């Protein structure tokens, strides 16, 4: 068969499957949007860190603060990414579990495993595109809310470490040659100031965070998906070897 015809047939099958599993896909997209939001916050926090770091850069008296600060954020982002990866694997696993009968039908009818993988990946591509588009709309509609939540997250991360919290309190209370306590009475006030006065930079950060989120999620999503689909197909082939289908 012509290659072009096969590719078209694969796309048609993927689209038909995408339309058929509406109910499952609705929940799948919803979960994917939640994962998008989680990851977006991680990326936005990582990107907005530069703005805060600039404020500390000239404070030579308190050299240990930037290190403590970065360590705290690194822990938060790494743990967050692990949680996102776990949720993503769980989501893809649920999709694979719901499709195991279809895989068996495909293999029993003599379908090639690689075509099945292609169909599943294309279908998931539609899902990922839908989720990213819906998330973009949510982001555009609720920019102020996202901004407030990012500020709150910064405050939560700082407040989590008592050492850092104490160090920062000292920084803002000590009357030495540092510039910070001339403008702000505490860290929370500083963050709010940074984030509300740099509107242009903020929009750039949100857009970059969205881009990085899409990129990171696409890479991880397809990597996990390929592994999960191949394992599932391999499992279905083993099932056939047991000859349960013939009741023998």
């Amino acid at each position, binding site marked *: *068969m012509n290659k072009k015809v*096969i590719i078209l*047939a694969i796309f*048609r*099958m993927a689209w*038909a*499957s995408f*339309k*058929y*599993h509406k109910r499952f896909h609705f929940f799948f997209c919803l979960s994917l949007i939640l994962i998008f939001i989680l990851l977006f916050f991680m990326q936005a926090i990582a990107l907005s860190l530069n703005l805060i770091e600039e404020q500390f850069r000239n404070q030579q008296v308190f050299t240990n603060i930037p290190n403590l600060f970065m360590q705290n954020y690194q822990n938060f982002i790494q743990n967050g990414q692990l949680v996102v990866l776990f949720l993503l694997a769980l989501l893809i696993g649920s999709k694979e579990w719901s499709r195991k*009968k*279809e895989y*068996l*039908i*495909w*293999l*029993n*009818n*003599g*379908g*090639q495993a690689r*075509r099945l993988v292609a169909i599943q990946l294309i279908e998931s591509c539609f899902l990922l595109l839908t989720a990213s588009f819906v998330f973009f709309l949510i982001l555009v509609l609720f920019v102020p809310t996202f901004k407030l939540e990012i500020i709150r997250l910064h405050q939560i991360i700082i407040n989590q470490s008592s050492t850092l919290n104490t160090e920062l309190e000292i920084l803002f209370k000590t009357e030495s040659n540092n510039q910070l306590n001339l403008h702000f009475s505490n860290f929370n006030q500083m963050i709010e100031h940074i984030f509300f006065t740099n509107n242009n930079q903020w929009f750039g950060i949100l857009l970059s965070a969205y881009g990085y989120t899409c990129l990171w999620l696409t890479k991880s999503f397809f990597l996990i998906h390929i592994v999960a689909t191949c394992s599932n197909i391999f499992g279905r082939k083993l099932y*056939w070897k047991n*000859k349960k*289908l*013939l*009741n*023998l």
Partner: protein
Amino acid sequence: MEKQKTFESLTQGVFILDKDEFSRFIKKYPLYPEQIIHPNWRYLPFLTIKENLAIDNSKKSLLTMDHLLKLLDLMPTLLEQKNQSLTLFEKIKCQLLQKLLTKKETIVFAYAIDALSIAEKQQLLSICERLVQDYQLTIYILSDDANLLRLKFH
């Protein structure tokens, strides 16, 4: 005296086997899922019957779809439908059509025809005989039906 024919000594024909004979058979000869015709043909509900038949695109037969539809007495409109309820006989014929389209030389009916009416069984057996004569196929019919097992080999 002519030696009795067994399914192990023949390469072409229609063979009706019981469960024990079939168990012996699959120990000797490897069988692939795509060679088997099931009574409950499971197909992907989001695809048309025609697309389901095209799932296996490994080897394409030289026979045309029209010719095979005529041979199996199937309506072309049936293939364009999606998610409809097929009768058992139609399911069996569709699977047979799939095997013929993909040039399978050995076809196994796994308890597929036991539940058919006598007229349908006769029609299917005559189709099988014609396929063996015209296209040199090997067809195994796994059955629990005592009347059918009495026919044994053709």
